[in-house]
């Protein structure tokens, strides 16, 4: 029974936490939706554990918990791949920005020098 409560409390906490992050505008929607879905699923399973058992036996899992693990591992894998993708994209954008920045700085230097040339103030 204690694991049941643990799951329930965990799911509720996750939902509240994600909701709060979203409310404060820290988390972008595209990430928040995923975690809210996860929290929702965890909540459902925590409130009504037989659902997990039913689903596990339907899919042929001898131990229901294994279904939970499989889904969790798959989900985490997908999320980390997505994050790697996002980080790569950000890095690419960042270095493009740095390149443009550095060229603009140089351009400003040249123009500043040219404009100050006649009567050096």
């Amino acid at each position, binding site marked *: 029974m204690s694991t049941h409560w643990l799951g329930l409390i965990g799911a509720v906490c996750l939902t509240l936490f994600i909701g709060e992050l979203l409310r404060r505008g820290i988390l972008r929607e595209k990430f928040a939706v995923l975690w809210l879905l996860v929290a929702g699923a965890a909540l459902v399973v925590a409130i009504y554990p037989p659902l997990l058992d039913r689903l596990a036996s339907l899919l042929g899992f001898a131990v229901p918990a294994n279904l939970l693990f499989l889904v969790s591992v798959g989900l985490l894998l997908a999320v980390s791949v997505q994050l790697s993708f996002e980080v790569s994209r950000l890095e*690419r954008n960042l270095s493009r920005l*740095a390149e443009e920045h*550095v060229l603009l700085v140089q351009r400003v230097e040249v123009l500043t020098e040219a404009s100050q040339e006649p009567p050096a103030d």
Partner: protein
Amino acid sequence: MVVAVPALNESETLADVLGGIRRAVPEAVLLVIDDGSSDTTAEVARNAGAVTLQMPFNVGVGGAMRVAFLYAFNNGYESLVQVDADGQHDPGSIRDLLAALDGASVAVGSRFVDARSRQWVGWSRRVVMRVLAALLSRVTGTQLDDVTSGFRAADREAIELFAQHYPSEYLGDTVESLVLSARAGLRIVQVPAVMHPRQGGRPSHGVIRSSLFLGRALLALSVAVTRGTAQNR
């Protein structure tokens, strides 16, 4: 013509290198890309009269070179020569590289053609480079011996290509850019160049280092080959 020198913490050798380049090709515009150095590299470059682009953070040699190509492209230069800041590349060979652009778009300085420079490379590194050279020679359809050489020249056409699509990944800059050029139909030619042992910085040899180097280069190569011609990045 632009001589681009990507530099990361090279304040000790940079002044000499720039001086050497200035003597070898007095008409060239010196362009130093300070790739987020923590020492006085940018100051040394400015004092030497070089156009200095100071990256706000480290972007790697590939990223630094992309800026150089962008600069050359935006300002309408007809050719760009890349020279390392650590004194490995002999400025005396710059003219040879430029001369090779008469009939090719990319000229790669090779240390293996010239007997005097060959001795400075360890055996394990040499094996790796030979494997890479054989593969890249096939891909590009040109005889290439020193594919990771950063001593290169590019003409206007290559500058235009590289300004848009220069790979910034480690090793991608040397290996992948060759594949990129070949795919875009640019002619690549190899030129014997004189190279010296590094004056500063750490040399990259040893068997483990070499294997790692080979692995990364092969990865860069296989990615480049599967990628096709210059799509959007």
